[in-house]
């Protein structure tokens, strides 16, 4: 199982803070997004992380991973 988290405005757009995806349904970050977003294209400027490290859409994912999607960061 892959744990999926959403933050900030993206969490509001999704209407939830997290999801869980069967690892067999997603081989990479883009496929995780396609699964949880149900056809909604990858939002412009959306960032992703796998296990707390920034990741590209093409990065492979594995059972037990934590994938996060969020807008550009605005700390400081």
């Amino acid at each position, binding site marked *: 199982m892959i744990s999926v988290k959403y933050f*900030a405005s993206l969490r509001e757009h999704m209407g939830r803070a997290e999801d869980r995806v069967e690892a067999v349904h997603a081989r990479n970050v883009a496929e995780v997004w396609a699964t949880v977003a149900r056809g909604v294209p990858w939002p412009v400027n959306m960032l992703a992380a796998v296990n707390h490290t920034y990741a590209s859409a093409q990065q492979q994912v594995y059972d037990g991973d934590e994938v996060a999607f969020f807008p550009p*960061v605005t700390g*400081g």
Partner: protein
Amino acid sequence: MAIYVRDIAFDPWQVLARHQQGLGQCGRYGATACFVGTLRDFNQGEAVAAMTLEHYPGMTEKYLGAIRAEAMQRWPIIDALIVHRTGTVTPNDTVVLTAVWATHRAEAFAACRYLIEELKTRAPFWKHEQVGESARWVEHNTPG
């Protein structure tokens, strides 16, 4: 510890004084540079009543630690400190503190600037502003 993510208000000058007392490096550092980020009561031409800072626990600490380690490796500095608020802040509250202790000012200034600029582009924090009766997500930081 030199990385702190705090959900309650802090006085940056007290934190600096306390951290410096605990350094145990008396006589070694000749330069201390710091940046203190404070919440303004206006943004993009509108009055800001409050702001809530959200972050990604775990990833935040990982990136703040990495940014600090990079600064320690890149410049010959003695110590570096990062403190960042989360939760709800109001105007005049401190949002962020970065500080560097070094032998000379050149590396102190450069490393301190590196800490805040890298934090702003890589650490997973997000700002949600209360403007009048409505609220909005801050979409990007202002240029340095």
